[in-house]
């Protein structure tokens, strides 16, 4: 076997082995399982890096491990498609996973589900790796759902809490709604192209009628909407914060939720041949980016703020892939994975220090107590706000510049406003939590987290600073662009550039927006130039709307969940029991009733039998007589 193929299959093998080991023998390993699991994932990471360089200096390849489902003309194998896109994703996924694993050793210390936790975390890494390297849609779908399952089980990790198990269930079901569309899309794709292999599908797509492509693309996008928490299916992600924080960092910020973006980038051929579908992607992305940032403005739960921020940033990525700037989308995906992972880990560190406290109103002045956490958090916040030279600046601006230069001005304006709001809410969080007066009741025992947690944070912070330089020189000539662009050569260029505004002008505007947001937060929460309460009362309706998350959960509950449950109950108690079973029992009862009547004749009195007998004889004779 070729070395690179061996490496390819070893990468998912390590976490898979880890899953089995901790799942079955977890209790014999005790605390060790965390270290070994991290080692396994680290091995995957190292192999991924090796594979990255192999691919970077040679070319991509595909390989089939074994035939999986062959039925009739349907053929799908367990096979990998290694190209630049997948190796970049591989390195990102395994890298962040390694750090999160290490961090988790400290974070989950003493939890009685310690090895269960690492088992599922390893399973997640395995699934995510397979999702990234799969080369047919069936395999992609399998691991698409598998990561959803891991998310379900890890969100509901503390299953004794009703809210946690509710959140897990909600995540799974909402994802399923998206996957429903995804599955139908796969069916349609198979029916039109008779294959599910990437290469053959992509080869066939240009000759497929445009409306069919559009329908396929939209259906596939439905899956992405569910998985990547876009409007209207984003509702599971904020609730998913019930899970352990490293899980939020890994699954709900860095890797799984970005699978939708990856999927669109992977199927760029399908999406680029359907401008209409891409437009929908752009609209949904833009709206979600704004909408989630709007909600994030007024929340007090630090994890939820970051979660809404994730939704918002995913919106940016969808904007990018929606206008055909796939490299920009993936670049933002990578840099977002780094800084959002960082933010979650630091938030986890805050929680750890405050024994699980999440409410911003009960925090303050933590900077002095937990310096490392605060510094790394600020690095993440700056990256998120798009302040140079942090990574967010390069990636977000690559997206926004492309949007502007391709002529989508409205989306660009929304994007800039969102950037302002983003800077505001993340610095509101930073100022409220780390600066200002310490809250006496809470902060007594606040302490810095152990090194095993802070080191991954520091590493991520360093990357949050340097990874942006891959985007130098900004715009369509960067290192990253040149590296990845070859993978998207088959895309149909449906949105050509219409402007040629230089990057520094556009960047200046974005940076200005970001700084404005930070300044506003500074004025409100540090200088106290304005009383936040007054502003609250001025914009009361808007504030209430934002604070209550635009009542989306309630609307869904009231419009969909409740009526459906009533309907189902009706279906069971009336239709099933009364109507259908009633009909069946009715037939039986009719017979029973008839025989009850018939039994009256058999009253046990011999006399009446004899009487009947004679009547019968008379009647019989009469019959013969009149015949």
């Amino acid at each position, binding site marked *: 076997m070729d070395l690179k193929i061996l490496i390819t299959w070893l990468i998912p093998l390590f976490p898979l082995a880890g899953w089995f080991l901790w799942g079955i023998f977890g209790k014999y390993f005790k605390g060790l399982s965390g270290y070994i699991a991290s080692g396994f994932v680290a091995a995957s990471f190292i192999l991924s890096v090796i594979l990255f360089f192999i691919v970077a200096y040679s070319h991509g390849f595909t390989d089939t491990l074994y035939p999986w489902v*062959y039925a009739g003309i349907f053929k799908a194998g367990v096979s990998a498609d290694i190209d630049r896109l997948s190796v970049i994703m591989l390195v990102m996924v395994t890298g962040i996973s390694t750090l999160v694993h290490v961090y988790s050793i400290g974070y989950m210390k003493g939890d009685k589900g310690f090895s269960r936790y690492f088992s599922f975390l390893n399973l997640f890494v395995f699934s995510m790796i397979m999702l990234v390297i799969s080369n047919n849609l069936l395999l992609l779908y399998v691991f698409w759902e598998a990561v959803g399952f891991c998310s379900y089980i890890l969100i509901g990790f503390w299953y004794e809490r009703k809210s946690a198990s509710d959140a897990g269930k909600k995540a799974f079901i909402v994802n399923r709604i998206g996957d429903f569309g995804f599955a*139908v899309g796969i069916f349609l794709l198979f029916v039109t192209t008779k294959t599910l292999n990437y290469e053959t599908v992509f080869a066939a797509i240009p000759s497929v009628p445009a409306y069919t492509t559009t329908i396929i693309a939209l259906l596939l996008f439905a899956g992405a909407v569910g998985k990547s928490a876009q409007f209207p299916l984003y509702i599971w992600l904020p609730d998913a914060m019930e899970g352990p924080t490293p899980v939020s960092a890994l699954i709900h910020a860095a890797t799984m939720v970005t699978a939708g973006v990856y999927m669109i980038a992977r199927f760029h051929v399908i999406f680029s041949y359907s401008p209409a579908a891409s437009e929908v992607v752009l609209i949904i992305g833009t709206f979600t980016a704004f909408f989630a940032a709007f909600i994030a403005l007024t929340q007090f739960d630090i994890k939820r703020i970051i979660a809404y921020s994730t939704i918002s940033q995913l919106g940016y990525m969808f904007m990018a892939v929606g206008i055909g700037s796939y490299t920009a989308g993936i670049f933002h995906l990578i840099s977002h994975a780094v800084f959002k992972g960082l933010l979650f880990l630091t938030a986890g560190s805050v929680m750890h220090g405050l024994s699980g406290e999440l409410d911003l109103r009960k925090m303050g002045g933590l900077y002095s107590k937990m310096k490392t956490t605060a510094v790394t958090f600020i690095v993440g916040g700056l990256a998120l706000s798009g302040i140079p030279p942090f990574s967010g600046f390069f990636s977000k601006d690559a997206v926004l510049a492309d949007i502007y230069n391709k002529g989508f001005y409205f989306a660009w304006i929304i994007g800039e406003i969102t950037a302002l709001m983003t800077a505001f809410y993340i610095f509101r969080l930073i100022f409220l939590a780390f600066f200002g007066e310490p809250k006496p009741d809470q902060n007594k025992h606040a302490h810095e987290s152990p090194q095993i947690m802070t080191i991954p944070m520091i590493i991520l912070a360093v990357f949050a600073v340097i990874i942006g330089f891959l985007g130098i020189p900004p715009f369509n000539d960067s290192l990253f662009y040149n590296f990845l662009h070859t993978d998207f050569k088959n895309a149909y260029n449906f949105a050509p550039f219409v402007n040629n505004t230089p990057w520094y002008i556009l960047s200046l505007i974005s940076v200005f927006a970001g700084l404005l947001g930070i300044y506003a937060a500074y004025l409100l929460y540090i200088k106290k130039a304005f009383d936040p309460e007054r502003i609250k009362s001025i914009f009361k309706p808007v504030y209430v709307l934002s604070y209550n998350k635009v009542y989306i959960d309630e609307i869904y509950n009231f419009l969909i969940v409740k009526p459906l449950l009533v309907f189902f109950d009706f279906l069971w108690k009336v239709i099933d029991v009364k109507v259908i079973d009633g009909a069946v029992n009715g037939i039986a009862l009719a017979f029973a009733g008839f025989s009850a009547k018939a039994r009256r004749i058999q009253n046990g009195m011999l006399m009446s039998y004899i009487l009947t007998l004679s009547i019968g004889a008379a009647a019989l004779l009469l019959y013969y007589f009149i015949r």
Partner: protein
Amino acid sequence: MDFFIKYLLSILIFFPVVSIFLLLPVNKKNEGILRNFSTFLSLVEFIFSLYLFIYFKQNTYKFQFVEKFNWIPSFGASYFLGIDGVSLFLILLTTLLTFISLLSSYRYIKEHVKEFVILMLLLETFMIGTFAALDVLLFYLFWEFMLIPMYFIIGMWGTGKRIYSAVKFVLYTLSGSLIMLFGLIYIFIMHYDQTGDFTFNILRLYNTHISNGFQLILFIALFLGFAIKIPLFPFHTWLPDAHTEAPTAGSVILAGVLLKFGVYGFFRFAIPLLPSAAFALSPFVIILGVIGILYGAFVSIVQKDLKRLVAFSSVSHMGFIMLGLFAMSAISVDGSILQLLNHGITTGALFLFVGMLYERMHTRQIKDFGGIAKKAPILTTFFMISVLASVGLPGLNGFIGEFLILIGSFHSYPVLTIIATSGIIFAAVYLLWMFQRVMFQDITNPAAESFEDMNLREIITILPLVALMFLIGFYPMPFLERIDPTVLHFLSMINHHHKAVYNAIKLKAGLSNA
């Protein structure tokens, strides 16, 4: 050994009967010996049936292990056995599930142990006989015999309204199968009239030419018999009652094997015998199937009784199978047959878990549970795997079957397939919601505090099923490559017949362009 292989099917059919005679001398009071010995015998039977798998030639659709003896020559009935890729797996499923259900009832069945094991073994004989029979009369005989042990199993060891359920089950299925018998005999007579060949041999009956109008009538007759057994949507109401009240072993066999007979009947009898009618009526059957998918899922969501929930989920799953079978594309029929096995494995496992929960808590109401996960991690793990397999999570068996069914049906019936696909959402809703309320959250019922985890026997009971879930999920090829030739032959056969009839009509109408 040659003899063994040659008469393997007969050996499989009659080994349980022989086992019964071995068990008869054992004293009624020696319950331990009865249980262990019967379980051992069913294990031996299962091992025997594995020889079928080993010696099965996979690249042919021809019937294998054929045995043929005269039986009632004056009726044209013969003792004619043989299996193809479909009945192979169904027989394996039967032997496996019988073993498992005997093993599972060590704790559940406390009274009349001897009668119980004898009835189970008898049932096994009849079930294998039904799958192996290639003679219509022999098939019908075994088919009806199956009801008797099942009636007693539900009636004697059931709970609640067990007599009502047992009677309902028997009367309902019996009335269906009588109509079916009428149809089969009618075909037999027609075949005799046409060819002068006085035979119940199904392979020869396939060649009967029946006009389209008659096909419709006969198909409806056969349809009633098989659809009730499946059960298809409006005929399903016996199922929740029977499942809910039956003992665990009864539910496992009922869901795992007995429901398969309906689909098997369609596959072996109704569709190949009456292809034109099958083609003409397939949209209606599929509509019923799709209604069943959603209906079963909807009703499952609001169930309060665990077993009833699983029973209604069966309705939903069997809807998928009917959709795949009647979509009549190679992929979907492959998927259907695979899903038959999956449903047997998964739902069987779910019933086992419900039984385990019932044995420990003496209740089946979902609201009485909660927080079991804390007390019983092993049970939680296996239960979760089974639930997820039932949900159709990729990587487990349910997904492969459902996916093949849906992708195969999409071409012919896109809208109905999309509606059916939405069933996967609701499957997640009802199963996960149930799982959350039963296993997760906090303990509310004090009885759960002393909840014991699975013991070794129970783990052994479950392990083969869970292993199969993973095997079919990750590597279904051993199954698919044996099913596929049979299915392809099935499809080419019905297409051929259908075309032949169609051409004959065209010829009559003078439309033939030849």
